[in-house]
């Protein structure tokens, strides 16, 4: 079993090369906004319009993406998978990548895009990231063990950010 070390920046760059529209959610999004947490996978909510899915499939091909849940048969996501609100848990040449059609109570790209911040992750490369307020809200909605465990750090980070912006 190959275990590539995650390289989030390389994944962002590949998606940018193909002009894929997406929002960074989950742990990496939280870290980009200052939360001191460790995460090994990159969670993205993508726009499910047909043109974007076509671009995403091309980017996933470049990333050598395949389902990490199928260890024997190397299966790749198709247009029908990426058009659904379901979660595609993939392994790429740059580490685990979760492509999510919707999160929380069925919130997709269009709904979430009103709650994002644009952050520069490298010179000339910016990504849309779900803001901390909405990320906290969604983790509370989901209420999974892992989501709830992260909440105190996310809430404290948000509080500190607000305190700083008031100075």
């Amino acid at each position, binding site marked *: 079993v190959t275990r590539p070390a995650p*390289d989030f920046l390389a994944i962002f760059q590949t998606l940018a090369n193909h002009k894929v529209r997406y929002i960074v959610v989950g742990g990496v999004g939280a870290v980009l906004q*200052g939360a001191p947490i460790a995460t090994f996978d990159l969670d993205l909510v993508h726009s499910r319009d047909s043109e974007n899915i076509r671009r995403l499939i091309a980017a996933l091909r470049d990333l050598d993406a395949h389902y990490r849940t199928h260890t024997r048969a190397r299966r790749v996501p198709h247009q029908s998978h990426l058009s659904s609100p379901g979660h595609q848990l993939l392994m790429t040449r740059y580490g685990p990548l979760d492509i999510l059609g919707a999160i929380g109570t069925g919130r997709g790209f269009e709904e979430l895009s009103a709650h994002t911040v644009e952050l520069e992750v490298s010179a000339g490369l910016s990504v849309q990231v779900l803001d901390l307020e909405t990320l906290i809200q969604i983790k509370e909605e989901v209420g999974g063990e892992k989501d709830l465990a992260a909440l105190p750090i996310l809430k*404290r980070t948000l509080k500190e950010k607000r305190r700083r912006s008031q100075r």
Partner: protein
Amino acid sequence: VAKKHTWYDKTSLKPERERMPRQTTRLKTLQTEEPSYGADGVDVTLIRWMLSMTPEERLQVLQQSIGSILRMQGDKAST
């Protein structure tokens, strides 16, 4: 009755702040600063450290942390 000698005898005439051992002064300073941990047990100093960086730097810190963990796991597996 003979006066009992204590360590501060020689300095008892100095103003209070001057008599105070260095460590006590340091402790008082720390006590007046904001606590490192919130009521929720979260280490606020780590958050402030992360917030002092740019998003690009935060991503680098995350990548380096993962790299360190994976290297340690690899070392463990090989021993």
